[in-house]
């Protein structure tokens, strides 16, 4: 056991943790919107819209995240026309490609979580709103969304932790996140166990914090 290596690698890994956290927060932010959008589309009565939203979540949940990143990062650049559009400014950066892939992926899972939350809202709540003469729009924003958020908190907490682990795949498209730096240190020093303990410890610490924040939120929003 090489304790000094563990100590010297700690600052490098800490600065890489910032990259991981940035990736995580940005992809969760965009993913939440995508998830909400597709959850609403899933509840739509139009069969085409419904099937489209189902297809989206099926494809993104049924394929590995690695394939999704590779398609976006290596694949899209192949289309000649695509490179001439303004979107290319975003898609040529591995950083944004990773975030887009993560956001689309977590969006698919989030849409499933939110959909099931919307479906488990007791119809009585909506009927009560209707009989009080509240408009459908306000029922949706003031009753359905808050209740659905509360219902989906535990599952969403798991999704955040899964996504945090997912950000490690950013290292496959040349980004130096926590796993990327850990791999670099391992491959230069050949001391996998020591680096694993430090990097794994940081990941566990983040899991622990996320877990506790979610617990706090669940308590706060419980009724």
């Amino acid at each position: 056991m090489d304790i000094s290596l563990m100590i010297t690698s700690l600052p490098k890994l800490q600065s890489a943790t910032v990259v991981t956290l940035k990736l995580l927060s940005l992809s969760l932010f965009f993913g939440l919107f995508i998830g909400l959008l597709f959850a609403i589309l899933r509840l739509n009565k139009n069969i085409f819209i419904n099937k489209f939203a189902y297809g989206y979540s099926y494809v993104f949940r049924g394929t590995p995240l690695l394939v999704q990143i590779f398609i976006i990062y290596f694949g899209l650049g192949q289309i000649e026309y695509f490179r001439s559009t303004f979107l290319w400014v975003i898609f040529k950066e591995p950083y944004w490609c990773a975030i887009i892939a993560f956001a689309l992926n977590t969006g698919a899972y989030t849409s499933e979580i939110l959909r099931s939350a919307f479906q488990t809202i007791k119809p009585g709540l909506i009927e009560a709103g209707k009989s009080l003469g509240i408009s459908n729009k306000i029922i949706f924003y003031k009753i359905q969304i808050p209740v659905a958020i509360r219902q989906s908190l535990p599952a969403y907490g798991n999704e955040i932790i899964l996504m945090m682990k997912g950000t490690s795949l950013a290292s496959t498209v040349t980004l130096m996140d926590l796993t990327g730096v850990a791999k670099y240190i391992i491959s230069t020093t050949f001391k996998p166990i020591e680096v694993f303990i430090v990097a794994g410890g940081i990941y566990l610490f983040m899991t622990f914090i996320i877990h506790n924040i979610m617990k706090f939120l669940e308590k706060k929003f419980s009724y």
Partner: protein
Amino acid sequence: MELLAFGKTGWGDELFIATLMTIAVSITAMLIGFLFALIFTPLKLSKNKFLNFIGNSYTTVIRGVPELLVIYLFFFGGSGAVMFVASMFGYNDYIEINAFITGSFAIGIISGAYSTEVFRGAIQSIDKGQFEASQVLGLKKFAYFFRVIMPQMLRLAIPNLSNVWQITLKDTSLISVTGLVEIMRQSYIAAGSTRDPLFFYSFAAVLYLTLTFLSMKLINRLEIKYSRGF
């Protein structure tokens, strides 16, 4: 389409073999995971605090650390660990472990942590009366576990095990970083030599979707079989 032709001109046969490799790694990893679950589920359910701690740390650490990091640990540390054990028996030559074994072991340990949680949950949700009844009937431990608890546990566990299977199947794509030629690695090679990454990675996605779709169908059948009478 000619890119997917079988034989020397296309990548069809290579991708087909790679798909079989993915299936083989997933099944091996799942079975290794069951072995781990068999060891750690009793630890997690045990009343002994120390054993309980070991069981809990296994599932917490593995489920809180990225799969890729675990794979790197095994990839870089695997042969070192084996050589260390071998040197204790007086064998000092370099030993290289096959990527298939390292890969399925790494994924197996991850899938084992998820399976452990599933089995623990399933055993805990079996009606307490079932345990008491089998004790009252004086069943031997073996019969008690395999005849009474196991069939009920499986029925409760199958839907969640199907999730674990999906996770395991998708995690095998990560072994491509160690050089094992499964779907992802083969697509990477093909994409590199034909300069057509979009097509090959999309095709890889289709292969994974097909695998998850077919396995869902199979598992649904199992589910029906095990919920007879409910």
